[in-house]
C-alpha cells in the first residue's frame, strides 16, 4: 500500500516553492531531492547530529524529523539563504560565513551548514551569548573535524561584530 502523493507549498529563503511528495518524505528529502537545495546535509537521519538543521517558521529544527507534508504553508530557511545574492557580483556572505572562514571553523564542511543555521538562530534570539550559552545551544550539532573550539570563537566574534554594527 503506497501513500498518495501530496501537494505541498511553502516558502524557502523567501522564494515560493511547491512539490509533490510522498507522505513519508521528510523535509530534508524534499529540500535535497526535489528542490535540489543540497546545502542541507543528512548526517544521521535520527535528529542526533544537526547536519540537517533548517529554520521552520523561525524555529530551529532538524529537517530529517519533519515530514514534508507537515510544512504546507510554512516559511523555511536553509543555508542557501544566508548569503545575499545580487546579480552577477559575488554573493555577500553572511557575517557568520565570513567568520567561519576567518577562524577556520570548518575542515570537511559537512557539519557547517547545520552549524551556520543553528548559530544564526541563536544570534537571532540572543545577540550577546556567553561561550557557555553558545556551546549549549549548539550541542545538537556534531563536528568530527574541528573539535568545536574554532566554531565557538567564530560565533562569539560574529556576535560581537553584529552587535557593533547595530
Amino acid at each position, binding site marked *: *500500500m*503506497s*501513500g*498518495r502523493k*501530496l501537494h505541498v507549498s511553502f516558502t524557502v529563503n523567501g522564494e515560493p516553492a511547491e512539490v509533490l511528495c*510522498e*507522505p*513519508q518524505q*521528510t523535509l530534508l528529502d524534499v529540500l535535497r531531492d526535489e528542490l535540489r537545495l543540497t546545502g542541507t546535509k543528512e548526517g544521521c*537521519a*535520527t*535528529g*542526533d547530529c*544537526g547536519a540537517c*538543521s533548517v529554520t*521552520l517558521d523561525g*524555529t*530551529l*529544527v*532538524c529537517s*530529517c*524529523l*519533519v*515530514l514534508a*507534508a*507537515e510544512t504546507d504553508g510554512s516559511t523555511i530557511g536553509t543555508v542557501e539563504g544566508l548569503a545575499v545574492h545580487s546579480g552577477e557580483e559575488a554573493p555577500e556572505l553572511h557575517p557568520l560565513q565570513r567568520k567561519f572562514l576567518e577562524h577556520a571553523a570548518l575542515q570537511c564542511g559537512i557539519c557547517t551548514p547545520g552549524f551556520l543555521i*543553528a548559530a544564526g*538562530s*541563536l544570534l537571532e534570539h540572543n545577540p550577546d551569548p556567553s561561550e557557555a550559552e553558545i556551546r*549549549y*545551544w549548539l*550541542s*545538537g*550539532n556534531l563536528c568530527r573535524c574541528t573539535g568545536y573550539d574554532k566554531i565557538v570563537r567564530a560565533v562569539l566574534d560574529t556576535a560581537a561584530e553584529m552587535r557593533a554594527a547595530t
Partner: protein
Amino acid sequence: MHPFTYEAPTSLDAVLSRLGSAGPRAGLLAGGTDLLVQLRGGRAAPPVVIDVKKIPELRRLELDDSGLRLGAAVSCWELSRRDDVRSAYPGLMEAAELIGSMQIQGRATVGGNLCNASPAADTIPALIALGARAVLAGADGERQLPVEEFVTGPGHNALRPGELLVELRVPPAAERSADAYLRFTPRAEMDIAVVGAGVSVTLDASGGCTAARAALGAVAERALLVPEIAEALIGGPVDAEALERAAAAARAAARPISDKRGTADYRTRLAGVLTRRAATCAVQRAGGAQ
C-alpha cells in the same frame, strides 16, 4: 520508511472520529521526534499517520489562577518562550529544556514525551512531582488520569483505542512552593537520563515543609511517584537530616536495571544524590533558607 497516508484533521471531533475508524494502528504525530525515528527504524509501521498539530485544543498554552493547561501539541520551544510558566514551574521548564537539543525542542512536545513513555523521559518525573493530570479524549468523552498512572510500562500508556491525549493540567503553584528537576547524563547534553529526579515542595512562613511530591525517572520500568521521599521532607525544616532521609527513601524506591548507561548499583546511589539536590533546589526556590 514504510509508506503511510498522512492526515491533518483540524478539529477534535474530526480526529476522534478518524481514530474511531482508523483503529489502533493509526500513528499520532505531534513533534515527530520520536515517531519519525521509530518509523525509519521499522519499530512502528502505522498505515495512517494523523498529525494533531492543527487541533486547537492540543495547541492550548494557558496559565492562570487555575493552573497550567499545556496542550499535547505544544512544543518545548514554545513552552520555553513563556517566562510566566518558567517562573511558576521552573522544574518542569528545566525538564522540557533538557530534552535532546535546541533542534529537537523546536518540535518535541511534553505531551509526546509523556505518550512515548520512555522510562527515562525527562518531563514525566517533573510532571508527577507537580501533581499533573493527563486529559484524554475519546468517542465516549473526556477522562483524566494522574500522570503517574498514565504510563503503564516502557513505551506503553493508558490510552484506549480511539483516544488521544489532549492536554496536561498542572495545579496552580501555591505560595512558597517550587519544583526542580535534575538528571544525570554522562555527557552535558544530547543524552538520555541515567537517573532523573523531580521534586516539588511547599513551605510555610518559617521555612518548614508542609507539602511535597517527588518522582524518580530511569530507575524502573516507568517513572515512580515516591511518597516516602515526600514524607521524609514534610513536617519540619528541610535540613541535612531530612535530606538524608529523603535520599535514603529514593535509594529504597529505585529498582533500576543495569544497562549500557549505568549499573543498577550506580543508579540507585545517584537516585539518592539527585533527590537530595533537587529537593535542596526546590526548597531554595520556594523561599527557604539553605
